[in-house]
């Protein structure tokens, strides 16, 4: 309900939804680099899989030779060969 109101306000005022709704913003550059803003922390970190928390669940990044090139409170930068990016809900779906 609360999110719907925020979404309508953001739409009406043409505000960026990642700011108003605190959503993750992911920028993929080719297959080798990824920048995620508004993440909520690392859940799992491995060479072939990185999972990080976002406002509405988790994001799974699958690939090979993955490294976190920069980790800051708002920003997460991943490099390596990225194969898939999956959004997983709180319920695991």
């Amino acid at each position, binding site marked *: 309900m609360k999110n719907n109101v925020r979404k309508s306000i953001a739409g009406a005022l043409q505000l960026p939804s990642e700011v108003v709704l605190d959503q993750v913003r992911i920028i993929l550059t080719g297959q080798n680099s990824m920048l995620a803003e508004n993440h909520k922390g690392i859940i799992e*970190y491995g*060479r072939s899989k990185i999972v990080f928390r976002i406002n509405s669940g988790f994001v799974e990044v699958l690939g090979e030779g993955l490294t*976190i090139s920069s*980790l800051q409170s708002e920003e997460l930068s991943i490099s390596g060969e990225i194969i898939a990016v999956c959004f997983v809900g709180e319920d695991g779906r």
Partner: protein
Amino acid sequence: MNRILTRFVSGSLRIEIRGEYAEKFLNLSLTQGISLSNIVRYDERRISADIILADIYRLRPIARASHCRFIIKRRQGLPFILARYRRRKLLLIGAVVFCIALYLASSLVLSLTVTSPYSLSQTEKARIVALAREAGVVEGKLQFTMDLEAAQEHISEELPQLSFVEVTIIGNNVLINVVKRVDVSEDDQIVACGDIVATKDGVIEQILVRKGTECVKAGDTVTAGTVLVRGYNQGGLVAASAIVSARVWYSGYGECALDKTEVKNTGKQYMTVELSWQTQIKALVWGDNTPQYQYYYQHQKSVPLVIWRNIRLPVELVITYYHEQQQDIFSYTPEQAWQQAAEAAEKNAKIALADDARIVASNLKEIEAGDRIKRARFTIETIEDIGDFSEADQQTQQQYLSLLNKENNSID
């Protein structure tokens, strides 16, 4: 780039985090505002990451809370480089000494070269180099201790036949660029209506007119500026031409004390640099203000500090050069003093002597002046050409034309 520079300046560490809950360690670091980079997992229990040096002490409680351990694997950045050199002081001193030595070596003057757009004889070049050396521009000296302007002035003063002197430094070479005064030949001059006038006082000996009308005759006494031959004849206005020989007398005075002190430059010099605020407040930044020489003369040069174009700071650099002089005291016998005075008098008498003057008589006379000084007067009598061409102005030309008309009318 900014981040890399910040990391370099503040220093960074490569740490290895060991434990089962490395992700917890990373998240706790994030909550504490510690940023990590280049995070690489090696195996199940080991992760390595880069952190800023200042954050290392904040990692201890995080490691304890996440049941992890961390060890420092590598140190990089400016603080560590400085620390290394702080331990190896001699290396640092060596590097500084090397830089200073390189700077000084590149500032040394190794040679003096004289150049001119016209050809100069070896003797003239040697004379110019000798004068430059006298003014302190010497091989083996540091460039910034030399006063090039003073050398320039010294050469110009000593060699008046040079119309232009410039002393510059290119690399390790001092370049003295000179231009000789070239007199325009009579053939190149534009001939206009004019008179022959006397350049000196004298008694006319002989006058031979080629063009114009003579105004004086042999035996007349003339003073400098007297018109000798007017610039007109029966045909009209002309550029007067004549040879006017006259007896001219020159007189020179010389004196020499029995105890005489002569001051001359040794070529040694030093400088001081002061910061001046509105030409009143001065702060010494280089050198020693107390005179290091017993006898010296000094001159100053102001260098305004220009930031950009005409934007200047109210502060300027005042460079003072001290040139050493030495005083030589000579004691003469009365005969030697008389000889010196006579030579000086003769030299002074001959200063104004024309090159083509023929000396017909000379006379040396002693002037009574007491026991401790000898004074002499040298008189020279010459016969020389004292006529010089002088262009007539419009008014004079009008006068000549009216004179010509009158003469023509009287003939008719």
